[in-house]
């Protein structure tokens, strides 16, 4: 892995959750993981960068719902909500990325990696989103290799 620094999974997911909420321009919800100072700031794009790609009405609503379910630990529910969003907007890379993240938390490394790849494939114009996907992929590969 050619990554400058290993970032622990909860940190990554916590950050992403925070981004999701800010990207959807609602009051930020408390992240489930403690928010330590990001060791490597380049891992996540700025909220503004993501906000530019904010999906429209119904998908945004579902992303909020999924974020709530995710925060309350209902990962199955979050995944079902994100799948519902994919049905409405199958080309929306952010939704695929959220699902990758949920699978990462569920320890489903293979799906996390593939879903993040799929997200990047749809996000050719969004470097920030692809960077997050790369981190998800790296985490998933590390975890799979380390037998976590």
């Amino acid at each position, binding site marked *: 892995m050619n990554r400058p620094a290993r970032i622990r999974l909860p940190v990554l997911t916590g950050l992403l959750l925070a981004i999701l909420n800010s990207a959807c321009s609602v009051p930020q919800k408390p992240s489930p993981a403690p928010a330590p100072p990001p060791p490597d700031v380049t891992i996540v794009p700025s909220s503004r960068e993501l906000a530019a790609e904010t999906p*429209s*009405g*119904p998908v*945004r*609503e*579902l992303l909020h719902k999924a974020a709530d379910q995710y925060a309350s630990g209902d990962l*199955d*529910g979050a*995944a*079902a*909500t994100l*799948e*519902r969003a*994919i*049905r*409405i907007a*199958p*080309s929306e890379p952010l939704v695929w990325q959220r*699902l990758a993240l949920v699978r990462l938390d569920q320890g489903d490394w293979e*799906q996390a990696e*593939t*879903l993040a*790849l*799929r997200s*990047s*494939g749809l996000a*050719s114009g969004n470097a920030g989103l692809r960077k997050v996907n790369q981190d998800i992929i790296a985490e998933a590969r590390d975890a799979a290799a380390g037998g976590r």
Partner: protein
Amino acid sequence: MSRVGRRVGQRILCRAGFAARGQCAIPNSSHRMPKKKQSSRGSRPARRSAGAVRRRTTKGKTGSWQRGLRRALPAVILTSLVLVLAWVLWLDYRIVDQFEGRRWALPARVFARPLELHAGKGIAADDLVAELGLLRYREVSRVRAPGEYRVSGDTVYFHSRGFPFPGENTPGRLVRADFAGHEIHRLGDASTGAEIDLLRVEPVPIASIYPGHGEDRMLVRLEDAPPLLLDALLVVEDRRFRDHHGVDPAAIARAMVANLRAGRAVQGGSTLTQQLVKNYFLTNERTLSRKLNEAVMSLLLEAHYDKDEILGAYLNEVYLGQDGERAIHGFALAAQFYFERRLGNLEPEQIALLVAMVKGPSWYDPRRHPDRAIERRNLVIDLLEEAGTLDPEAAALARKRPLGVTDAAPTGRTPFPVFLQLVRNQLLRDYREADLREEGMKILTTMDPLVQIRAEKAMQASLLRLPGGKEDGEAALQAAVVVTATGTGEVAALIGGRDPRFPGYNRAIDAARPVGSLIKPVVYLAALERPGSYTLATMLDDGPLNVKLANGKSWSPQNYDRQSHGRVSLHDALVHSYNQSTARLGMEVGVESVARLLARLGIERPVPAYPSLLLGAVELSPIEVAQVYQGFADGGYSVPLNAIRSVANRDGQTLNRYPLRISQAADAQSVFLVTSALRDVTLQGTGKSLRKRLPPGLSVAGKTGTTNGYRDSWFAGYAGDFVTVVWLGRDDNRPTGLTGSSGALVVWADIMRRISTRPLVLDAPQGVEWLRIDPATGLLADTGCDGALELPFIQSSQPAGVAPCARRVSEKARSPLKWLKGLLN
């Protein structure tokens, strides 16, 4: 009361309760009296009619016989007691087991996908109205209650019924949907005026999977049943229900008197408890022992359970009608079956009719015998008035009302048997058949009824326009259609034959046929996955070829037009579906890699790697072809086709979700190249007639397939939201005379025209760029080249040379090379 008394249901009359004993049971020669009582005097002497001698000799021994009896009496009594006890325990076991264990066999309910509504959704007002029609909403002039709608210009008002499914238990609401053309312009709550971001309409029930004996029911809880129904049941069927212990001797006595007077069984004395027991063990046997069993079971039932539990069970168990093989059980389903209303929404006279029908659902069937039904209904209303349950005004009003049943009974047979078969196949991997039939599972499927119905209509209409498409019978031209959603692989529609309602041979799943040229995109993908060796501009030799086979024979495929086309670009070879160049390309790439790629794309059956595979000698079913093309539509990601989203138990808890699982079957860049060529198939190649068949702006990608002797006509392709595969052919494998373009393409276009809301978007993935190419040489072109093509290339694979037609190498043409150089440095 005096006229009807305590009559019980006709099905139960004479079969349950002691009242009927005098009329029904005793004359019946097959009855079995308790053995102990009849043994010593009844039958034994008759059997001993052998001779008087023996009788005389035994007479002399009377004293000792009596002494023996006296000695044996305690043993006889003890044995009898043990036997009676064992019998009672056995009955107790049976009735408790019935009541507790399998309280009600509930059919599985199968639902379509719920319709999601939001502003910007590509749906026309007519579609929404069609969906509401499938949900049996009623059109009204003013929308007040759930299940009603109104159309006013470009606006549809409707009151949804709520979404009672796991993960989202939302109440119904009054909705206003404003349409602009084929799109929802605004979605809002008509009561509050607030915007609605996203609304999930309750899903359309598309099928039920019934218990083996066809019992159908909907459950209602006692506390949810209308009070009038409960009062009416007690007044008409069992006035002392709250006081007796399962059997009501007074009612029996009254019934006996009435029956003796009438000289036939006119009245029954069965309690509701007895009727419930009777319903549990439905049988037409009319023996005294049965009645005794039922009486004892009723007493036992009352000893174990309280009155409310028994009444609740009765509400759901009672038999109230028949629909073909489907038996209508319980008041909730009966309300739906006769009035298409929820039980809670029935009018008093409708409740009275249902209670009236308990006595004989077939005799008093309001659809077949309205006169009898209304007479008995009014009798019930009289009783309710006498008992004070209905006041005189309400009773008078109710008597004047018509029966109020809908003309045609809602059918229990699914209109979508072919899709249901797919659902069953998938369910049977995870559940037992018995669970499907009896556990009341709620199955949320992926079927889109609007897409399904439109695909059916399109298929039927376009089939009629095809040569030979009108003839019917065993040798008729048959069709199979699969429609799946891009992104998720959810099966939206399935057609298994020219008659979509016929549940027989399901060609979409079970008919494996040679796929012909539909295989070609796989061959080209296997080549384009090696960008160092192949691009869309690679020149191929389309001359005749001869391949030596392992068995010593040789294989010499020919082009469809029997012509060779010299040197052609890989792009053109695919677009025009040339066989000779394709076979040559496939042999270079390796038949094995094509077979492996097919497996990666989701084909599970073993595919023999013979050279003829390259031209589609492999037999696949339409749904397998859809699986392969799903991978193309999803940019190289393969997702197993899926017909079910989730399964919940009868209480609504999720038992199983079928989550989206994807795998990368091929890299996105190579797949993009294939998709761009398949788009060109529909513009300039074998599918170019689509240009006039599809609305302008609906860009699609697809491929024709024709097999030897015109036996199979295929078209497979995709746009923005659906992958659709169409097969036409005959069951006896006779020629159809149709090519892929003259047959299946016509049906495909008609379907896509009606269901597509999003065109194919050729958005190049990262690392792919478009270049202008001279098709004659496969080299870089510029404005000086006539007929130049824009083709996508994976970076680092673009042609190095410049076509002679290019007057000079422009900076524009050179720039990618520069770019590449910079990258490598």
